[in-house]
């Protein structure tokens, strides 16, 4: 059972069918004038309409990119470079996706100043603190819609209102929220919004940036002038076609999926918290995506839990150390103010709407068994172990990164 749909999703049959003709038959370059190129151009136009419709935008406000990371880069660097004469201050949060966080880090190396707003224990920023952070130099606010590890949702509408009143450009990364909750660029009051295809049963390697009419950005990729000169390079036609179809389907099924997923999510939260002692939900219980939950379990380490669950046929993930290529403890969970030891015991579960066969009871029992087993092995469980002063016998400089 695949429970890591926030990482990526399966391409749906309908999407795949829609893409198929654009590999071998309709392989034309959309910039050309003869028949086969015109077919590709038509396909692009339709895809653009579908993406736009899904977020209540106009087709000419959609720029296709290679995915969420590029969209974030284009939005942030694009605005920063465009408006750097006006000011060099940007406001964000301390739980952004690396595509935003590291882009801002790069801008800091170019003398931009960045304010990282803290989140509360539920993973949500304070609008008051945002207001206070705004200066005359502020040119951009970039705050994610829903967090990729926690699933918690930021008050984008309200932030957008403030940004608009102050005349500051506002970008949101909606990669995780799109297709899960309503994403309406008008209601959200955003100027720029990032989307990704592979999180909504579309193909990988394609995404879009919504750029509100009248907002200007400096391109990242210069070249033949495709995408209104904002993103040069021959368009990824099959990918874009698939993305367009995935957007159409996601928008059509939004309400149905929301209901289905949120009821499974709530059942899962209830059962985990009542069945497993010393288990906690990370992030807000109410203000969250319907498909994503993040738990933590005292005295165990997340990777071990993932391995045991995998052995039982469940694929989930952890934001904690050791699970990925970096050993750093999750900065997102750390930002919630959790004890660093507890951050290591986290488990992220992200559901798919097609999780029909998902037996919550069986899954919760499997987690309970795995957690119990790891606690049996853990010197931190039920023991008054004083580990202060116990340090690994290794170079502490190396250790600091973990």
């Amino acid at each position: 059972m695949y429970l890591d749909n926030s990482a990526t999703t399966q391409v749906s049959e309908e999407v795949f069918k829609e893409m198929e003709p654009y590999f071998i038959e309709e392989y034309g370059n959309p910039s050309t004038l003869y028949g086969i190129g015109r077919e590709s151009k038509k396909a692009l136009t339709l895809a653009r309409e579908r993406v736009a419709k899904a977020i209540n935008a106009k087709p000419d406000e959609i720029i296709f990119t290679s995915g969420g990371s590029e969209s974030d880069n284009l939005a942030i660097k694009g605005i920063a470079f465009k408006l750097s004469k006006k000011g060099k201050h940007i406001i964000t949060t301390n739980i952004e996706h690396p595509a935003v966080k590291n882009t801002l880090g790069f801008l800091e190396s170019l003398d931009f100043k960045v304010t990282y707003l803290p989140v509360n224990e539920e993973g949500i920023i304070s609008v008051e603190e945002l207001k206070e952070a705004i200066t005359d130099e502020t040119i951009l606010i970039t705050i994610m819609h829903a967090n990729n590890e926690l699933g918690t949702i930021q008050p984008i509408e309200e932030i957008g209102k403030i940004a608009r009143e102050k005349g500051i450009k506002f970008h949101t990364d909606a990669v995780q929220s799109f297709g899960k909750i309503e994403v309406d660029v008008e209601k959200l009051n955003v100027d720029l919004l990032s989307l990704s295809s592979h999180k909504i049963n579309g193909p990988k390697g394609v995404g879009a940036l919504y750029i509100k009419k009248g907002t200007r950005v400096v391109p990242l990729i210069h070249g033949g002038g495709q995408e209104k000169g904002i993103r040069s390079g021959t368009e990824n036609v099959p990918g874009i076609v698939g993305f367009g179809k995935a957007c159409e389907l996601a928008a059509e099924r939004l309400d149905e999926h929301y209901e289905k997923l949120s009821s499974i999510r709530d059942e899962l939260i209830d059962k985990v918290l009542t069945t497993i002692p010393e288990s906690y939900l990370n992030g807000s219980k109410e203000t969250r995506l319907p498909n994503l939950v993040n738990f933590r379990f005292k005295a165990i380490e997340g990777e071990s839990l993932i391995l045991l669950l995998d052995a039982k046929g469940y694929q989930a993930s952890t934001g904690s150390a050791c699970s990925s290529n970096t050993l750093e403890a999750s900065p997102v969970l750390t930002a919630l103010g959790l004890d660093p030891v507890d951050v290591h015991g986290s488990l992220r579960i992200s559901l798919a709407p097609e999780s029909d066969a998902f037996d919550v009871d069986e899954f919760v029992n499997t987690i309970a068994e795995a957690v119990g087993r790891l606690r049996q092995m853990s010197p931190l469980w039920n023991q008054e172990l004083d580990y202060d002063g116990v340090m690994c016998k290794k170079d502490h400089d190396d250790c600091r990164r973990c």
Partner: protein
Amino acid sequence: MDYSEKVMDHFANPRNCRMMEDANGVGTVGNPTCGDLMTIYIKVNEDEVIEDISFQTFGCGAAIATSSMITEIAVGKTLEEALKISRNDVAEELDGLPPIKMHCSNLAADGLQAAIENYYENNQ
């Protein structure tokens, strides 16, 4: 994470994972803030031979597997021999560890040394 079959076996079926009430040497290494904490228990006889050894570990798959492995390597060895067991020995016995785990999770040799030092402190 690319773990060898041996690592997965020791992780899934850890050897000698228990607390030892009558241990005469106990060593704890690691730091739970970093995600790894390991306690090694040894029972040393009059001939300074490790008669029994066990562990308890909070940590990732590699941390658990290395703990389990060192109990198999060290049992029956004299303290002098046991002190020579290195981190690399443990990793090699497990058919290797992912490079990123070599440093942070490969703590078992340190744990055993700490347990032996504790035994010496208790018995001087």
